[in-house]
């Protein structure tokens, strides 16, 4: 029987990994795990796009389930999502550059895209929440101890509700790369965290959007928890010159496809 410890460790103390390996060691571990996943898939096993058991991301070691999740038919409440609407957010909450008295520092960008289901249908009236580091790669969070400057004019959190075409629009600042203590000289590629709801609760997703051409992709154990190149590529936004506003902002486009519901669910009644 596992003894539950009385109190948690201070969250700050958990951010650094215990062994602090080199980038070279991390790269070798990642290559080995990707190859093993490919072999399992080739042998006919269903392997998820994002690997839960991924030791190069050190803090996952004690936090991933060791058993495969059970395949169930979604039922009743799981087939629905919470209902969001314009009353849940104000329009201004989608502009992260207007939250303080002055203009934030950095490269102003607009990020837009569509939220779709697996059949290409728009996910309408659903909540999209984002959060990110500032242009210097610093999060406003009190536990972030990266000695890059905070920007008094930038918080880095915004939200919106998708329109009838499933579209979302944000104005923000391009985030900087962010150092963390997973291993020696570990840097996260610049990213914006996205949290979304689909039309069914099974489609709930939290993920990260990246920027094209980042040299840190191959080195990042969080990005590489996604085992296939094509799935990793889908997290990279496209630079879109038509979205770039003259003398104002650079434009990026990123569509999100929520998972399922998959018709195969309903063909397996009584099968498991």
């Amino acid at each position, binding site marked *: 029987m596992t003894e539950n410890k009385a109190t948690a460790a201070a969250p700050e103390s958990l951010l650094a990994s215990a062994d602090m390996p080199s980038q070279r060691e991390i790269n070798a571990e990642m290559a080995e795990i990707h190859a093993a996943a490919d072999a399992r898939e080739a042998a006919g096993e269903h392997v998820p796009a994002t690997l839960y058991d991924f030791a190069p991301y050190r803090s996952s070691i004690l936090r991933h389930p060791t058993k495969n999740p059970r395949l169930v038919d979604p039922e009743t409440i799981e087939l629905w999502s919470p209902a969001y609407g314009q009353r849940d957010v104000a329009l201004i909450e989608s502009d992260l550059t207007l939250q303080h008295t002055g203009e934030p520092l950095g490269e102003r960008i607009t990020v837009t895209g569509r939220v779709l289901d697996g059949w*290409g249908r728009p996910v309408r009236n659903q909540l999209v929440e984002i959060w990110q580091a500032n242009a210097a790669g610093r999060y406003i969070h009190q536990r972030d101890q990266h000695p890059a400057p905070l920007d008094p004019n930038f918080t880095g959190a915004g939200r919106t509700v998708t329109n009838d075409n499933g579209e979302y629009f944000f104005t923000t600042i391009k985030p900087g790369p962010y150092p963390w203590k997973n291993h020696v000289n570990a840097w996260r590629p610049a990213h914006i965290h996205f949290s979304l709801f689909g039309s069914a609760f099974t489609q709930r997703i939290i993920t990260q959007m990246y920027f094209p051409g980042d040299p840190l992709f191959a080195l990042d154990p969080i990005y590489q928890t996604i085992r296939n190149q094509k799935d990793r590529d889908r997290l990279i936004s496209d630079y879109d010159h038509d979205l770039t506003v003259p003398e104002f902002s650079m434009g990026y486009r990123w569509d999100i496809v929520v998972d399922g519901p998959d018709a195969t669910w309903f063909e397996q009644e009584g099968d498991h």
Partner: protein
Amino acid sequence: MSETSQTRARRIADAGAPTLEATAGQTIGPFYAFGLQYPKMHEVVFPHTPGSIVLGGTVFDGDGAPIPDSCVEIWGADSDGTISRGRGSRRRDDHTFTGFGRAFTTDEGRYEFWTRNPGPIDGKAPFFAAVVFARGLPNKLHTRIYLPDDEDLLAADPFLSSLSPEERKTLIATRTADGGLHHDIHLQGELETVFITF
């Protein structure tokens, strides 16, 4: 609600196989609080109103240590089995039951909601749909939190019946003396919660 859960399931089945590849999920990371927090996010119902209960527990890692940086979300029906289509989960008006709540674990790993007991839908054992995110967890985890009270409905549940007694226990909450619900979530270890995929 013009569509029932059964016709909705049928309509989804009739749609055939999806044609687009889904976007892969990623970890919530360490610094989600300032992005996802909002007032009264864990108050699915206004505290202490008639029928309100506290649903709470601790999220544990594989060492049995509480996880202080995780996020639990619940989505459930109202006490009469109605699935809410009410808006306002993100901006509470203190009386609309929207069915959705979000809680961050405390430094002791504890999450807590004010909510109501969901009633059965279509005669099935009632449960909260739950999803867990955490720093160090590469993607979301879905699970269910069943109510412990109606043993006949629990016994008739095909999913619960497919599990071993130990596994089944990880999905059924415990009724507390004050009428609330206690439910721990173990991401790993001997008491590992049963997680589900669809």
